[in-house]
């Protein structure tokens, strides 16, 4: 009994050292913007929400400059009345300049901070990240707005799946390169997703505009949905809703330098401007779509090869099929790889609403 009392006393008296983070005594950072300010220094923008008594939300940003990423937060903390904490970060926006210089160091701090969740979204900004965070987008606060913007587009399969978890997985996997969505500020209270940035290692090398995102997703993502427009001839056109799609890499056994990307799409015709929609017309639409997808995707693949980036993870695929795979050799040969795209479209019942 005596020892029990002693343990209880120890428990109660010596446990005061745990640091508390009462939610109304901290400033929860919801979004982080990182920019290159000059050659040596970085600029960090930290967005927090101020919750007003009338339940409205106002945005507040803290900006600081420092050569090291950790120092950014410490310096920004000097401006804040209550400590800035990183546990709520859900969106990280990286400035265009910094993206071109390399984001390796940034990923490193995100890996080290245990309070940041793996569902944190990353994006590249057109212009500076600071500008994007300082806009006024919606009544729910900028942080939540940006998060919902990216989250809803990923859930509706309009953007390929990206978050800290996938990003780190792709980044550290040999034979695969990363890609991040791009944010573009239209005006101070409007923002849009303007495309996807392709990376070679940690540096941005190419941009895919939002118009080609659908074809990009066919190549990198496993499941896909979306509408696409198929002109049949001058007068007639059809809109097809993609129900599901998948891609497969097929390795030619005879020629190791040849790989086929086989894309399978299941779709339904949503709208058709012609008069009759019979079996013949459906077949025609199907063929047109196949041709279109093949053409667009091949273009994308060629541009990947030109920029020497591999967002599809072909290197990783090759490695899984070949014993004694040599990355250096692969990197040399990647540009000369013969990649074919084959598309197969199945149109389920036409005109289902």
């Amino acid at each position, binding site marked *: 009994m005596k020892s029990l009392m002693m343990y209880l006393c120890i*428990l*109660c008296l010596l*446990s005061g050292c*745990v640091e*508390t*983070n*009462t*939610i*109304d005594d*901290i400033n*929860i950072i*919801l979004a982080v913007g990182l920019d290159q300010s000059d050659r040596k220094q970085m600029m960090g923008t930290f967005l927090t*929400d101020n*919750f*007003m*008594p009338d*339940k409205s*939300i106002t945005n507040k940003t803290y900006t600081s400059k420092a050569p090291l990423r950790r120092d950014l937060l410490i310096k920004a903390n000097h401006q804040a009345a209550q400590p800035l*904490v990183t*546990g*709520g970060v*859900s969106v990280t926006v990286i400035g265009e300049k910094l993206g071109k210089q390399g984001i390796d160091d940034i990923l490193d701090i995100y890996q080290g901070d245990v*309070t940041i*969740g793996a569902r944190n979204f990353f994006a590249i900004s057109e212009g500076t990240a600071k500008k994007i965070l300082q806009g006024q987008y919606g009544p*729910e*606060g900028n*942080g*939540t707005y940006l*998060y919902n913007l990216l989250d809803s587009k990923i859930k509706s399969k309009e953007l390929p799946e990206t978050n800290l978890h996938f990003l780190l997985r792709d980044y550290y996997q040999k034979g695969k390169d990363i890609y991040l969505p791009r944010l573009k500020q239209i005006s101070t209270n409007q923002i849009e997703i303007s495309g996807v940035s392709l990376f070679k290692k940690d540096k941005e090398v190419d941009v895919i505009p939002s118009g080609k995102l659908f074809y990009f997703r066919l190549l990198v993502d496993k499941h896909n949905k979306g509408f696409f427009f198929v002109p049949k001839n001058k007068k007639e056109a059809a809109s097809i809703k993609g129900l599901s799609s998948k891609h497969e890499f097929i390795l030619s056994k005879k020629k190791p330098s040849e790989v086929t990307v086989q894309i399978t799409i299941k779709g339904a015709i949503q709208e058709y401007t012609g008069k009759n929609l019979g079996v013949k017309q459906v077949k025609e639409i199907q063929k047109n779509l196949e041709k279109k997808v093949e053409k667009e995707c091949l273009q994308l693949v060629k541009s990947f090869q030109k920029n020497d980036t591999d967002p599809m993870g072909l290197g990783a695929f090759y490695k899984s099929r070949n014993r004694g795979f040599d990355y250096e050799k692969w990197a040399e040969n990647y540009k000369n790889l013969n990649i074919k795209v084959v598309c197969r479209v199945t149109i389920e019942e036409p005109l289902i609403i």
Partner: protein
Amino acid sequence: MKKGWFQNKNGQGDTEQKNATQTLAKSKDFTKTCYYNQKTNIDFCLTYLTTLVDEKIIEQSILSSLLAGDFHSINDIKKIMPLYDVQICNDPSKIEENLCSGYVLLTIETEEKNYGLIAAKKEIVRALSPPEVEISVVGPKEAFVESIATNLNLIRRKLPVKELVIEEFTIGRLSKTKIAILHIEGITNQENINTVRQRLKDIEFDDISDSSYIVQIISDNSNSPFPQLLDTERPDRVAAVLAEGMIAICVDGSPQVLITPTTLVNFFSSFEDYYLNWIIASFFRLLRMFAVTFSILITPLYVAVLTYHYEIIPHDLLSTLITSRRIVPFPPILEAITLELTIELLREAGARLPTKVGQTIGIVGGIVIGTASVEAGLTSNILLILVALAALASFTTPVYKMSNTIRLLRFPFLLFAQLWGLVGIVFCVCIVLTHLIRLTSLGRPFLDPFYPPRWQDLKDSLLMLPFKERSMRPQFLRTENPYRFSKKKASVKKDIDE
């Protein structure tokens, strides 16, 4: 009185006995009256305690037959007395005991050794009333009363078989409380009965006023906040558990009958469950388990999350939580403890006050204090909702004693939530779980059927499967006959023309 207050020469050497009798004679209600039967020329005396006997019986049955009857010696009284409990005794040590329990002592001048004891108890029995604690909409509406005779009658009527055995004895040095152990021969494990009998006989206590005394005395672990014996006021429940192979203990003067051995899930099953369809009953049971978990954990979780783990709050909830706590000057733990204590105060005040005042207290407390403290900025309204919900959820436990335990359990959880956050809560859950695993009721595992895992007992625990699935008696009872009925025969549904 030339020969002492009763004719007993044998007791002369026994001084203690004499003192005792003198003590009895000191009481105001001690009466000794002498009469004379003219027919047979006999002097006789009646001694009794006026507070205990029914004067009508003395007047109408005893005196009338003694004065007018053919009465020569003590042995004649059995012939002439129209009463069922008439004893002829020659053992003087029994006299006081019987006098104290409402007997009339008959002595005759001429006969010194023998005397008569005639029962003339004044029975004050409350009429049967519907159950007040374990209320049910469906099912029988009778509840036990304070008289053990009535209670045993209620149970016997539900189980009119010769196998139902009622053992009776008295405990309590002063209260002389009558206790009955009930079991069904051929079903109940003999070892369990022996344990109960042994524990009851070993009770050394002067005044046993209620069955709850016995619960506390004979529990396996009296230092546990969890009740290990179930008390019920429903005869149907007692009959049902006797048929399952449990043991019931009736205590005179207590409208609650004890059931043992029990498991934790028994405390969360209302007996009304058995009167409902198994799907609905299962739903209610799951709901109750959820309510209990919710009631214990919700305020500690609030404290832990708001003090340590802001990371796990979803973004959409963040603004609601922060705005509600904006003007609250206290840390979450103080806020939570204040509110919890307020609710406890309300409950306690409501329970102690007369019924009519008690109701107003609930309204005053709930509405006025709650709203006022939120408006004054002393507590956040979210916590107010949570605490009120937790209080509501704790009322869903069908057994009153268990709901008290749940009330209490919340406070250590709160303390540890403040000390270590979620880790503290996990720590507390571990302690409670370890305690429950170690706990036994009459030597049988209290956490059955989860630990040890028993598939058969699971069928009537969190879920309640249909009747034909429940063909076995609970395994943890180790009954002598594990089958309630043949499952094969029961599943055949014959039409009338077959």
